[in-house]
């Protein structure tokens, strides 16, 4: 397969990408930080930090007859380690410092109305560590005193109600794993390749175990009119007071939660502490953070994020409004863009699949750009509206390969190709790009984000 060579048809200047001048600016800003980084790195090396040795060497037997890492016992094998509770709240190993949520340069100009992306390329299983959960703030984040936070229920109810956090946390709660994906995840790649790694293409998704009270419980306590009240409005307590319309049918199913717990602890402030809405299968903007009010109503609200943003432009110039469901999607996280394979030989291709309509039924993987496919193993648990991890064996022969994954959910729906998606929606709709992702593995081992035609 020789198609990896850039041809005359390759688009060289992506419409969504920074131009050279923009990149120079980003560099100038980054320079100082990088100098600090190099200084720190040398300091660490000089201090004799036990760092792993060089790469891409395989694991040969050295001439002295054995690996010095085996023959010379390291400090940790011959000394006394540290005591308990050195860290009252434990942190990841210092060797994991490369795993950070990151901004995409040039995407937004302020940090308060912005996004940071989760490092999917380095995560395992289906749970996103809370500190690496992607962020999307519209008007900055807050750390709110939970003893002063209130939730109000009003509108088409018998009795408008106010709850304290104490009261909400006294009620019977449930704990469920769900993914949350920004409707604009993968948006920059609608027209063409614009970013290098899976962190920036797909990193506006995370999956957590959420603990909370089904919203229907609170609505029933207020005597909500579940017949006339076809919709609710959810509203946040922060400056943006984010508002979103949610159909009552989703709430009466018991799926929508008023959540305070995330992965065994309270929500992180960046994720809405102390209270957020959990709307499984629906784009992240509906999962209102710092939730302060639920209004029951008989018509949709056409809020700012339903009438100006989070509307999908179609080729005929109309906008699709109230596009909420995150349809079936998947991505290979290893190998993925920006990575370098160490050598030829065996690899475990691994990735994530999800659907806002239910469970993942099947994931197929191709290493030849979609010509031939094999069915991957789905790892347990396979849960509704949660991330599902898939794995498949692969022996890399050192030749160029184009890796793709294609998911199917339990409604039978199959994740579309870029060509299929663009045929209906064009390239300007920004939201809900669930196309099959392609990663080109080059002969030099470097992996690139590419799109095919």
């Amino acid at each position, binding site marked *: *397969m020789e198609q*990896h060579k850039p*041809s005359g048809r390759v*688009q060289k200047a992506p419409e969504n*990408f920074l131009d*050279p001048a923009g*990149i120079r600016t980003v560099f100038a800003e980054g320079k100082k930080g990088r100098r600090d*980084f190099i200084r*720190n790195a040398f*300091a660490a090396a000089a201090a004799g*930090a036990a760092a*792993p040795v060089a*790469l*891409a060497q395989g694991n040969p037997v050295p001439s002295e007859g054995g690996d010095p890492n085996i023959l010379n016992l390291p400090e940790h094998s011959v000394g006394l380690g540290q005591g308990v509770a050195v860290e009252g709240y434990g942190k990841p190993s210092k060797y994991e410092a490369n795993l*950070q949520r990151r901004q995409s340069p040039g995407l937004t*100009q302020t*940090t*308060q109305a912005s996004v940071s992306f989760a490092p999917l390329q380095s995560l395992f299983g289906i749970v996103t560590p809370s500190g690496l959960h992607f962020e999307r703030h519209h*008007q900055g984040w807050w750390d709110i005193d939970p003893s002063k936070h209130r939730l*109000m229920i*009003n509108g088409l109810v018998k009795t408008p*109600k*106010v*709850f304290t956090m104490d*009261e909400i946390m006294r009620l019977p709660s449930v704990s469920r794993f769900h993914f949350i994906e920004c409707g604009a995840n993968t948006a920059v790649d609608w027209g063409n390749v614009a970013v*290098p790694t899976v962190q920036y293409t797909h990193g506006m998704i995370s999956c957590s175990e959420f603990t909370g009270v089904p919203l229907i419980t609170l609505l029933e*306590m207020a005597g909500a009119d579940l017949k006339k009240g076809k*919709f609710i409005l959810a509203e946040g307590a922060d*400056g*943006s*007071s984010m*508002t979103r319309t949610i159909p009552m*049918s989703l709430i009466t199913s018991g799926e929508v939660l008023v959540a305070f717990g995330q992965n065994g602890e309270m929500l992180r402030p960046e994720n809405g502490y102390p209270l957020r809405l959990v709307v499984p*299968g629906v784009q992240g903007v509906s999962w209102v953070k710092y939730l302060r*009010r639920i*209004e029951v109503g008989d018509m*949709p*609200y*056409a*809020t*700012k994020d339903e009438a*100006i943003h989070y509307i999908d432009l179609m080729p005929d110039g*109309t906008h699709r*409004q109230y*596009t909420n469901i995150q349809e079936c999607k998947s991505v290979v996280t290893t*190998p993925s863009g920006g*990575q*370098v394979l160490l050598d030829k030989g065996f690899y475990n291709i691994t990735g994530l699949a999800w659907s806002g309509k239910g469970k993942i039924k*099947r994931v*197929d993987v191709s290493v030849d750009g979609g*010509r*031939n*496919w094999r069915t991957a193993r789905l790892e347990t648990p396979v849960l509704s509206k949660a991330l599902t991890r898939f794995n498949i064996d692969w022996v890399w022969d050192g030749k160029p390969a184009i890796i793709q994954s294609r998911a199917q959910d339990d409604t039978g729906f*199959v994740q579309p190709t870029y060509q299929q998606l663009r045929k*209906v*929606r064009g390239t300007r709709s920004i939201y809900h790009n669930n196309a099959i992702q392609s990663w080109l593995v080059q002969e*030099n081992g470097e*992996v690139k*984000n590419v*799109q095919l035609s």
Partner: protein
Amino acid sequence: MSSFRKALLSLALLATAGVAVAQSTKFPGIGREATPKEVQAWDIDVRPDFKGLPPGSGSVAKGQDVWEAKCAHCHGVFGESNEVFSPLVGGTTAEDVKTGRVANLSRTDYPGRTTLMKVSTVSTLWDYINRAMPWTNPKTLTTEEVYAVTAFLLNLGNIVPDNYVLSDKNIAEVQARMPNRNGMTTKHAMWPGSEFGGTAKPDTANTICMKNCAPEPKLASLLPDFARNAHGNLAEQNRIVGPQRGADTTRPEGKAGAPVSAAPAAAVVAAAPAAASTGSDSKAVIALLNKHSCTACHGVDKKIVGPGFNDIAKKHAGKVDYLQDKIKNGGAGVWGPVPMPAQSLPAADAQRIAEWISKGASK
């Protein structure tokens, strides 16, 4: 009535009361009725049918004053915005006001989409300005100011005339002139209910094929070489152990067959982004800058809406009083056309920030 019978009766009454409570809620002792005052304080949303819209009015002229004082520094004097926020106004025509469809939306060569090109409901503008603007001081506009700013914005888009006074009485007439009022559709399968009568059928229908499926793939798009390092060194964004490393994007790509270029593992460790050398005083001031939303418009070492603090420090080194006055009273013209509004932070904080800038605005 004997005291015995009295006691029995009150017991019976108690029991009845108990049943009544049990019927009204499964969860006694949890939640209470919201007072009308509380509901009024928080129930601020305005629906497309204008339910929730408080009575009142505001003129285009008044709106222009409010705009220039509180909005223009982010959104531009004419709503054209600067490089920070998306433009609000532009791209709509008198014909669009007639048809309710913005013609430019169907052009692929049109450079952008402004708010007035997209929004179909005037209630959305009123509601959002009222709840979330100005960006750094949301919910501080009076009802009259919200009407006035909305009127001014609509006037910039030629939807209402210069002498217009927008009110709860005439806002429905404005709705009938919104340029994109007929531009929305709910005919899709992405709403999780049947309330809009959309469709249950998804708009793509890929099928499962396993052998000899697609035509031979051709690369259609990849990142240009000049962008190789635009997202920072990818070697520092991947784990230092495992089946792969991140590519060292500070160096040109290795040739096929050549050994891969990846950063030495030792250099990849300790990439914690926070600068360890930061003085505690600078840290405290930077926390203040965040607290008072200064960083919404000023970067410590980069221009956003206003100049970077490093540039201000160069220009006004040592001028504590001058800087303090600018923070307190705002200014315009020193750094370009975008005015800085007066800030309401405590004087002591303003002084600390001014001192920090005057000494070089170090991180």
